């Protein structure tokens, strides 16, 4: 297989309760595609169809040369014969088995003597080898997630499917788990499909984001692109956070400074070093006419050009381009007052505390 060639290909059409799920997607080796959309948009059904847990009315699923499903040809491999690592939303650890037996469950093909060793090695990779003999009930949410990831990846699956991987965690644990998950995904060669209702999560973890609404992909692209140039009000409303990429270092003042790729800098109260993504929600950003002097407590000031204006009810998503695309959300009143239209120049400001950093 040539590097960068599409590895996981999926095309499916299936009738859900209220609408038809109909989509096509490709995920390349080593990359992660996030399916984002509101609850009930059909996201999880896509994952289930890939894994063989849902049989679509019509469709085709293939990993490289292996065809897992081809309804036209009558091919439909059962889940156990597809090579999918599946992370369930509630992690679905077997409650009556210890942690290592949970991991070893997926290694049934290996010789008995090797199973414990391989299970422990997988747990070690996620820093939870010490929990090998614990039962899932005794674990915290974050630990469960790591064990579930270790279990899904121990079999070295051909594709990785993540269903709301952070939804079961509280906010604090979630932020740390997001960083770890990002690192894991970076190490994983298997094409990955991530399902989430949280655009920020998608932006931080995935290379590509596809927004799905009522069974159809309405826009697909890099997170920043979606945020800055939403194809519709729906996407604009949904594409919450923009992510700016750069290299972080600690400033003399104690905050973290990110030198953005392409120029400009962003400050954050999060601690990080090296290559990072800086996430900021559009509603945290204030727009001023270009050239206004610095005032107030906002540390971040980026000169930007307006690329798009998308009305969402009584507010508007303003697509912006500095060295990288991002977006702000302002009231319709401000659009008129500031004369915001494509081509206009503005200064975008926001606080360092509103900037979330995730290592890349």
């Amino acid at each position, binding site marked *: 297989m040539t590097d960068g060639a599409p590895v996981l290909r999926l095309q499916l059409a299936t009738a859900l309760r209220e609408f038809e799920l109909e989509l096509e997607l490709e995920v390349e080796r080593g990359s992660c595609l996030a399916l984002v959309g509101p609850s009930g948009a059909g996201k999880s059904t896509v994952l*289930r169809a890939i*894994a*063989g*847990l849902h049989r679509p009315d019509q469709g085709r699923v293939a990993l490289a040369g292996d065809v897992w499903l081809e309804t036209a040809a009558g091919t439909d491999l*059962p*889940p*156990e014969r*597809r090579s*999918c*690592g*599946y992370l*369930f*939303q*509630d992690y*679905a650890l*077997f*409650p*009556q*088995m210890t942690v290592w037996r949970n991991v070893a*469950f*997926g290694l*049934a*093909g290996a010789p008995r003597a090797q199973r414990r060793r391989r299970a422990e090695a997988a747990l070690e990779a996620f820093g939870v080898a010490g929990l090998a003999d614990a039962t899932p*009930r*005794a674990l915290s949410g974050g630990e469960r997630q790591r064990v579930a990831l270790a*279990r*899904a990846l121990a*079999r070295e699956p051909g594709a990785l499917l993540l269903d709301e991987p952070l939804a079961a965690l509280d906010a604090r644990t979630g932020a740390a788990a997001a960083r770890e998950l990002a690192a894991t995904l970076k190490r994983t060669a298997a094409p990955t499909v991530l399902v989430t209702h949280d655009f920020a999560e998608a932006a931080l973890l995935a290379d590509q984001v596809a927004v799905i609404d009522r069974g159809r992909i309405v826009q697909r692209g890099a997170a920043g692109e979606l945020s800055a140039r939403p194809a519709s009000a729906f996407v604009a409303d949904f594409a919450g956070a923009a992510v700016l990429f750069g290299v972080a270092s600690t400033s003399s003042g104690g905050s973290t400074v990110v030198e953005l790729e392409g120029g400009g800098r962003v400050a954050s109260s999060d601690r990080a070093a090296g290559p990072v993504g800086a996430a900021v929600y559009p509603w945290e950003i204030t727009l001023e006419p270009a050239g206004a002097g610095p005032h107030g407590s906002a540390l971040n000031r980026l000169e930007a050009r307006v690329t798009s204006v998308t009305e969402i009810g009584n507010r508007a998503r303003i697509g912006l381009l500095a060295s990288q695309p991002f977006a702000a959300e302002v009231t319709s009143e401000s659009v008129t007052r500031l004369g915001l239209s494509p081509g206009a120049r503005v200064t975008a400001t926001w606080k360092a505390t509103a900037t979330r950093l995730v290592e890349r």
Partner: protein
Amino acid sequence: MGRRGPFVVALTIALAVVLLFLILPVVAIFVDAGPGELLRSLGSEQAREALWLSLRTTLAALAIIVLVGTPAAYLLATREFRGKAAVTTAIELPLVLPPAVAGIGLLAAFGPEGLFGAWLDDAGIELVLQTTGVIVALTFVAAPFYLRQAQAAFAAVDPNLLDAARTLGASEARAFARVAIPSAGAGISAGMALAWGRALGEFGATLMFAGSFPGITQTAPLAIFAEFATDFTAALALSAVLVAVSAALLLTVKLIGRTPLLGGVSA
């Protein structure tokens, strides 16, 4: 404590009457003849034979129920199909059937003159007045207790666990054996205890279908019935044993119900 008005007093009296009425006969079994007499009576050939037969036949029935009933309950719990409600109701029917009707039904189906009588005869299988017949009767009356519990227990298993097992390379059969059964373990055990309890107490259907022959079809409840006119103490002794076993089974069910279900939510 709140005020003790006449209404509360009335409630308390009602509960006291209920408790007294329900407990008295059970206590009387142990007190009427005294423990020494009871133990002596249990030494009799007929008593020991009846208890031994009860143990063998109920365990055999339970084994059949669990072996066939578990996969059947799993199918009912995990699949949707047309007529499922009718099937479920049909399975529950023996629960409300009068024992005498169950006995007549078994005779009409498997008796010498029954629907399958000739067929069983050709196959060399004798049920009526045989120990095998006792097992058939016990299985018939006790199976619904197990099926209902097992079906509910399987239905309560988080379907994600079974899906997870499949994506981890397990066939459906392996997911059933390694994940579904252990996850439904508490409910299944409670079902077994209930079915066993029902089988131990079975009287009417056994009497009609298999008869009451010491050593062959005379289980403990039938022996109690056969003895009570001639040797009341022997009947009491057998009853005492059944009370003890039933109480133990009830306690088991209660304790299983109280342990946090395997796979339950935790902090």
